[in-house]
């Protein structure tokens, strides 16, 4: 088989897997998984981060322990736990896509929780204290005073988080999820004589995607920095 013939035969398989005759796969699945993973990890990270700084011990301690354990373990370990133990908890078989999605949400949620926590704790204490002394309860003070300031600078780093999530979806490979790395390996098994070229194309695909997105983040950051008039926080006494 000639190289161009291979490209001609398999490019669609590489991009969308067996779709429309079968389940979605390939690069499209990578993107869908990364987007969904990030979208669900954001609220999870926000809630976990809030729980990490909440004044209630019964909430703070278990969440702190959870975040600690997840951040000290490889994502692959979380994927394995989800893959082997979700079925025994829920009682029926979990598909590879849902397994990977759950692992991503747990893992990235814990990472984002630390970013949210750092954002909140980076604000002067006076913000929370003055809101509380104005009579706002803790949650309301958090929602209306602290969080808007803490999350203000998170938008450009969200795009970077998306790039990280795209890289992480490649681990779906190990549980047989038909994302783009897995598809590349399948093509390699079928064609057999172009391993170097196939894996170079795989690398180049990720590169174009992730590099493009991180340039976008850079551009967004500069644009936001130029547009937002500097609003100095009142300095702490």
């Amino acid at each position, binding site marked *: 088989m000639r190289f161009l013939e291979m490209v001609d035969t398999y490019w669609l398989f590489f991009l969308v897997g067996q779709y429309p005759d079968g389940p979605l796969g390939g690069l499209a699945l990578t993107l869908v998984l990364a987007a969904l993973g990030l979208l669900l990890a954001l609220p999870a990270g926000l809630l976990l981060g809030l729980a990490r700084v909440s004044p209630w011990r019964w909430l703070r301690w278990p969440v702190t322990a959870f975040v600690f354990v997840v951040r*000290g373990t490889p994502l692959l370990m979380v994927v394995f736990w989800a893959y082997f133990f979700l079925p025994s908890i829920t009682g029926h078989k979990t598909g590879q896509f849902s397994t990977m999605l759950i692992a991503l949400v747990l893992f990235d949620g814990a990472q984002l929780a630390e970013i949210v926590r750092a954002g909140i704790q980076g604000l002067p204490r006076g913000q929370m204290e003055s809101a509380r002394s104005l009579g706002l309860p803790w949650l309301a003070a958090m929602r209306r005073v602290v969080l808007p300031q803490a999350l203000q600078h998170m938008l450009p780093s969200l795009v970077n988080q998306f790039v990280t999530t795209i*890289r992480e979806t490649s681990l779906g490979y190990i549980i047989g999820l038909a994302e783009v790395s897995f598809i590349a*390996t399948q093509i390699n098994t079928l064609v057999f004589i172009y391993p170097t070229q*196939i894996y170079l194309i795989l690398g180049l695909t990720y590169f174009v995607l992730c590099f493009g997105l991180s340039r976008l983040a850079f551009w967004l950051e500069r644009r936001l920095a130029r547009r937002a008039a500097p609003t100095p926080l009142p300095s702490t006494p």
Partner: protein
Amino acid sequence: MPTFDFSLLLSGTVHDMLAAGLRLSLTLLGVTLPLALLLGVLVALARLAPLAPLRAAGWLFVESQRNVPLLAHMLFWYFGAPELLPDGAREWLYAHNAEAVAALVSLTLYYGAFMAEDVRSGIRAVPGVQLEAGRALGLGFLPAMRLVVLPQALRAAVPPLVSQTLNLWKDTSIATVIGVAELMYQAAKVEAATFRSFEAFTFATASYLAVSLLITALAAWHHRRHPPRAL
């Protein structure tokens, strides 16, 4: 789910497999870390060198590593790259644990790129006059970097380098994909052979966690011994 059999982890075949896996994981970390650090310093210097082609090469290296998942790098170095070698070298490689070599190469290059960025921002944290003063005293670019700037820069770069070391430790697990018999691989093998998944995964998780905690503790100790100074 069957009950948790703790004795499996203390002795016997399962214990031996998991312990061998942990040893190999630690070896991967121990070999990769100094190599990646060295590569990181070299690439950081290249990215700041007074030669434009060198700067461009450093930039291209860092971006091409960081924007591709480690798993794709490993697949390339294991399945793709050996095809480029001459026949003799390739056969030698396949006879000498090609999986471990591919894992070492990809981990070193990948983390070398991340560490280069940390070292580079450490260097940029050192005021420019330090380099200028070194040059004014008659030192060349490289000696001024080595004797004046780098000692200060590396110290400033310790916290991000520690978190890269943690990521490196966790990412040694990805070597499973190309069949390196490290901890994750052995845990999966125990699962397949004995169905003792709960014990095997608990052992693996506890080991990853313990080493991560150890690295964090060392970093905290270093931070207390050498508190950050304003430059």
